[in-house]
């Protein structure tokens, strides 16, 4: 299956890109995705070991299983207001 990773703000600067499509085996979790993303490029290894993520625009835990077409956002510490 394929999921789309999104990088915002400081993470986008770090990644050098705002999006990354990732191929994952069926049954993969958020945890698996984060590991794959961090290994996929040298600059992406600079992401925190456990960044906050949102799956399809909802904050998600690392055990959550992903599905084909999911949108997984890597959320840096927020600074709104």
């Amino acid at each position, binding site marked *: 299956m394929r999921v789309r990773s999104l990088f915002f703000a*400081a993470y986008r600067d770090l990644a050098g890109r705002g999006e990354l499509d990732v191929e994952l085996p069926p049954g993969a979790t958020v945890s698996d995705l984060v590991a794959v993303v961090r290994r996929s490029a040298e600059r992406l290894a600079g992401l925190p070991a456990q960044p906050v*993520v949102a799956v399809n625009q*909802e904050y998600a*835990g690392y055990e959550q299983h992903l599905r084909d077409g999911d949108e997984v956002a890597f959320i840096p510490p927020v600074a709104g207001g």
Partner: protein
Amino acid sequence: MYVQITSDPIQVSEVLASVGSSADGAILLFTGIVRNHSEGQPVTAVQYEAYRGMAEQVLREIAQEASERLGTDRLAVVHRVGDLAVGDVSVAIAVSSPHRAESFAACRYVIEEIKVRLPVWKRERFVGGEARWAPGRALAPSPAAGV
């Protein structure tokens, strides 16, 4: 209830006018403004970036939770994104309720939750042109533990 993420300047008087009723004895308005300083350094401008779709959804959730504290649905919250100058309004929150305690609690709840949950980031530009992402607040619940 009125909730919006917008790149247009916030019309504070309209946000304020959207709450209130003849049953309400208290109206509270909070506005967040771009300051000319951040942690001791002079700031010239800021840029707010949002994960737009999610930010609107989270802001609606926050407003809903605050409305329960307020005891009314007379609550409006608008957050601006894009390029802002010093003095510009970044966020406006208006609430009204029969008694003041509920208005204070609900208004405070909205801004505190925005600060920890809303997927919005702020890039500060300093005198001399240097810019950096404002140090933000990591979400309290550890993602490993399942948010």
